[in-house]
C-alpha cells in the first residue's frame, strides 16, 4: 500500500517528502532554492533558475559585474552593447529599482484548486485528467496561476494579471523575481516551520515586496467545536511580530511588507448553501449544505466555522477574523523596522463581488466549486487587481517606477527567456 516502502523508491520518497515539508524545490542541484523543474516546489512556485549548477545565479540578486558575461539574476538581460561597450543590465536596469514579490500565504495564496471536470461524469473525457500529475505534485495547488505570483495566462479569460506580472510589466528587470511561499493549512501559528524557505540575501539581493496573507486558518479548523481552536488576537500579535522580526533580518533594505487582512467568510454559506455541488448536479441530490455537513461530520472540513449551517458559529468566526484583521492594522500603524516599511490592506471580498456583479457575474462564481471554500482564479485575479490599485493609489513607491527602457529590453531580449 505504501509504495515508499519499496527499497528502490525509499530515497526519492524521502527527498520528495523533505521538499514538500520544507517548501523548497525537490530538484535543485546547486541548492540555491531555485529550480529548473516545474512542480515539487519548483519554478511554478519560484522564478526559474537560469543556471542550476551555480548557486550564485538566481532570480532577484543584484547583477554580478552588471551581468557583462552571464545572466547572474536570471532576468534574461546580460551581455554588452557592441555599440558603446556598456553592459545591457547597467544600461537598462541601473537606477530602475528592481524588486521581487514574495508571498507568505496559505492554500488560498497557493491557489488550491480541484478541477470540477475531475468529478463531473457528464463532461468527463480523455482530456479531463491530463493535468492530474502536475496538480498532485503541486499538492493540488496552482501557484503558476495564482493572483500573487501567477505567470501563466489565465484559464478563465480574465484580463486582470497577477501582481508579479504587473511588476514585470512595470519594470522588465523584475523578470522571474517571484516566490510563492504558501502552504496548505498555513497560519500565523505555523509559519515559523517554513518561513526559512524564503530566499533573499540582505546584501546581495534586490529589495522585495512581501505579502503576509494568512487569511483563514487562524479562525478555521476541522474540529466539531472550532472556537477554542481559533487563534486569539494576543497569540496572533505575538507570532506576526516574530515573523516580521525574521523578515527584518533577511530582507534587503528598502523592502516593503504588506499585511493582508482576513475575509468575512460568512459569504460562503450565504451564496452557496442551497446550490448543488458538482456531485449533486446530475441528479439534483447534493447541495453544498449537505456537502459541508458531510465534511464536518468526518472532521475533515477545511473550515467548520464558516462552512456551517449554524448562524451563531458563522458570526463568531467572522468576528474573530475581524479582531485578527484589527490586530494586523494595529501592528502596521505602530511598528517600525529598519529594512522595510509596513502596510495593511483589507481583504475586501465585497468589493470584488460588486466588481464581478457589474460584469454580470454571480457571487457563487468566485468560489472553488469542488471544495466550496477557496477563492477561485477569477476571485484571486480580481483581488490582485484591487490590491494593485489600492497600493498604487496610496503608496506608489512600493511598486516602483515604470522603467523607460522596457521597450528596448523587449527589443533586444524578447521574452527574456520566458518562465
Amino acid at each position, binding site marked *: *500500500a505504501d*509504495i515508499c516502502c519499496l527499497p528502490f523508491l525509499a530515497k526519492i520518497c524521502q527527498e520528495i517528502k523533505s521538499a514538500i515539508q520544507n517548501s523548497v524545490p525537490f530538484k535543485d542541484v546547486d541548492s540555491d532554492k531555485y529550480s529548473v523543474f516545474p512542480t515539487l516546489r519548483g519554478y511554478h512556485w519560484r522564478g526559474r533558475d537560469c543556471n542550476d549548477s551555480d548557486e550564485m545565479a538566481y532570480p532577484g540578486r543584484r547583477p554580478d559585474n552588471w551581468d557583462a558575461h552571464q545572466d547572474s539574476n536570471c532576468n534574461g538581460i546580460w551581455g554588452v552593447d557592441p555599440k558603446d561597450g556598456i553592459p545591457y543590465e547597467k544600461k537598462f536596469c541601473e537606477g530602475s529599482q528592481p524588486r521581487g514579490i514574495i508571498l507568505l500565504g496559505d492554500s488560498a495564496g497557493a491557489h488550491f484548486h480541484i478541477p470540477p471536470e475531475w*468529478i463531473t*461524469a*457528464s463532461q*468527463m*473525457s*480523455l482530456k*479531463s*485528467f*491530463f493535468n*492530474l*500529475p502536475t496538480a*498532485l*505534485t503541486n499538492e493540488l495547488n496552482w501557484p503558476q496561476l495564482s493572483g500573487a505570483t501567477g505567470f501563466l495566462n489565465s484559464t478563465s479569460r480574465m484580463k486582470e494579471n497577477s501582481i508579479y506580472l504587473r511588476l514585470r510589466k512595470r519594470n522588465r528587470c523584475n523578470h522571474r523575481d517571484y516566490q510563492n511561499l504558501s502552504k496548505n493549512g498555513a497560519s500565523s501559528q505555523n509559519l515559523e516551520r517554513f518561513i526559512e524557505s524564503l530566499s533573499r540575501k540582505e546584501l546581495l539581493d534586490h529589495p522585495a515586496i512581501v505579502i503576509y496573507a494568512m487569511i483563514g486558518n487562524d479562525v478555521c479548523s476541522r474540529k466539531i467545536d472550532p472556537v477554542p481552536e481559533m487563534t486569539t488576537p494576543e497569540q496572533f500579535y505575538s507570532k506576526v511580530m516574530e515573523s516580521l522580526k525574521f523578515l527584518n533580518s533577511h530582507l534587503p533594505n528598502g523592502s516593503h511588507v504588506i499585511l493582508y487582512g482576513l475575509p468575512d467568510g460568512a459569504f460562503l454559506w450565504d451564496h452557496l448553501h442551497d446550490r448543488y455541488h458538482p*456531485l449533486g448536479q*446530475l*441528479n439534483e*441530490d*447534493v447541495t453544498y449544505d*449537505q*456537502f459541508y455537513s*458531510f*465534511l464536518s*461530520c*468526518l*472532521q*475533515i472540513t477545511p473550515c467548520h466555522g464558516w462552512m456551517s449551517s449554524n448562524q451563531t458559529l458563522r458570526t463568531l468566526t467572522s468576528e474573530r477574523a475581524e479582531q485578527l484583521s484589527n490586530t494586523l492594522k494595529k501592528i502596521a500603524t505602530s511598528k517600525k523596522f529598519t529594512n522595510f516599511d509596513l502596510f495593511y490592506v483589507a481583504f475586501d471580498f465585497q468589493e470584488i463581488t460588486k466588481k464581478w456583479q457589474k460584469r454580470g457575474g454571480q457571487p457563487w462564481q468566485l468560489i472553488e466549486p469542488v471544495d466550496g471554500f477557496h477563492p477561485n482564479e477569477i476571485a484571486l485575479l480580481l483581488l490582485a487587481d484591487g490590491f494593485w490599485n489600492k497600493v498604487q493609489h496610496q503608496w506608489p513607491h512600493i511598486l516602483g517606477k515604470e522603467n523607460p527602457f522596457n521597450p528596448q529590453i523587449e527589443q533586444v531580449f524578447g521574452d527574456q527567456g520566458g518562465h
Partner: protein
Amino acid sequence: HANGHVCVGCVVVLSVIEQLAQVHNATAQAAMERLCSYLPVKLFLKSTCYLVVRTFGPDIIKLLNADMSADVVCHALEFCEQVPGQPLCHLYPLPKVAWKFTLEKAREIVKGSPTLKYSRSS
C-alpha cells in the same frame, strides 16, 4: 474520524462511477473501465486505477447493482465507518429503508468477499 479523507475519497470515486454508468447508460464494470481509461499513465495513476478495480470491482458491482448508494457501498467496504457514539456521516439523502437494515443487507451481499479478508490498510 481517523479515515475521514479515505471515506470522502471513496464516496467521490463511487459517485463518479455511478454517474458515469448513468450518463453512458452502461454497467458499473464498463463505467470503472472508462474511468481508468481516462487517467494518465504518469505517477502510476492508470495502473493503480486498474488495480483498485480488480481488487474492489466485483464487490462494487454487486452493491451498485443492488441500488446501494455511494455512502452505503463505502460503509459496506469499510472505507467509511460510523464510530460508536458519533453521528453517521453521509453525503447523499439516507435510503428510505432504515440505514441499519440497508447496511446489513449490503454486508450480506459482500460477505465472504476475499477483499474484505485483508485489513483495509493493505
